């Protein structure tokens, strides 16, 4: 039987689906019995989901235009 501490140590692998079948069933047995750990598993999973694929803000125009200028200069120098 897994303790709450064991559960926390294995949480990332469980959520990343990299825990093996045996560990997975032990974790599922634990969270079925332990409401606190169930909440931790569920809210950590939601934390990961909410960040995943979060689009970056559009790059500021001045930053982009300086980047493009620097690259053009570099490319021109390479061709020279």
């Amino acid at each position: 039987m897994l303790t709450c501490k064991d559960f926390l140590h294995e949480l990332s692998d469980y959520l990343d689906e990299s825990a093996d079948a045996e560990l997975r069933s032990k974790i599922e047995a634990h969270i079925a019995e332990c409401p606190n750990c169930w909440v931790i598993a569920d809210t950590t999973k939601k934390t990961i989901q909410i960040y995943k694929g979060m689009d970056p803000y559009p790059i500021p125009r001045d930053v982009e235009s300086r980047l493009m200028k620097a690259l053009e200069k570099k490319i021109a120098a390479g061709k020279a």
Partner: protein
Amino acid sequence: MPVSSLADADETLLVAQSREGDTAAFGELVRRYEGKIFRLAQHVTQNREDAEDVLQETFMKAYEHLDQFQGNSKFYTWIVRIAVNQALMKLRRRKTDKSVSIDENIDTGEDTMVREIAAWDEDPEQRFSRDELGGILDTAVQSLEPPYRSVFVLRDIDELSTEETAEALGLSVPAVKSRLLRARLQLREKLTRYFKRKGDDAFAYM
């Protein structure tokens, strides 16, 4: 190649065309990833000026060394490695500021620390506007210690694998795993303040 079809062009093709000196193709690769690289650079350096330097240096180096790109990893993973190296060099040059060291020794003994336990709404993000949500998520990430922040950004925002993250940061796989766990648990706590189900309190499930 007409501009309209560049935006849908396959990445392998764009890389091949860039190698042959097609600057429009390289420009399209830059446009695809500049936002992510700039965000990553800002997260690692925590300094907009440095982040802009890192952004420029990353794409200049990528262009320069395009022939070294093997094609057995994703182009993005390859430029992330360049960007992380450039960002770390910036940090090393800024030696006086110790708070930004990425490879400092950290105590992972407290990674099991959990203070707040409260269930969230089914779709917690629905309660906030897109901008509000972006602000909440960014502030939470920025408040992480640098060693945790970099691992979290690469692994969970940019979705690199554990091995790719380890390689990009020069860390061992177990170090990435323990930092990631700690980062996730800390963020979970920070976000619980915003996303917990209304009417619930920390002890509702005890």
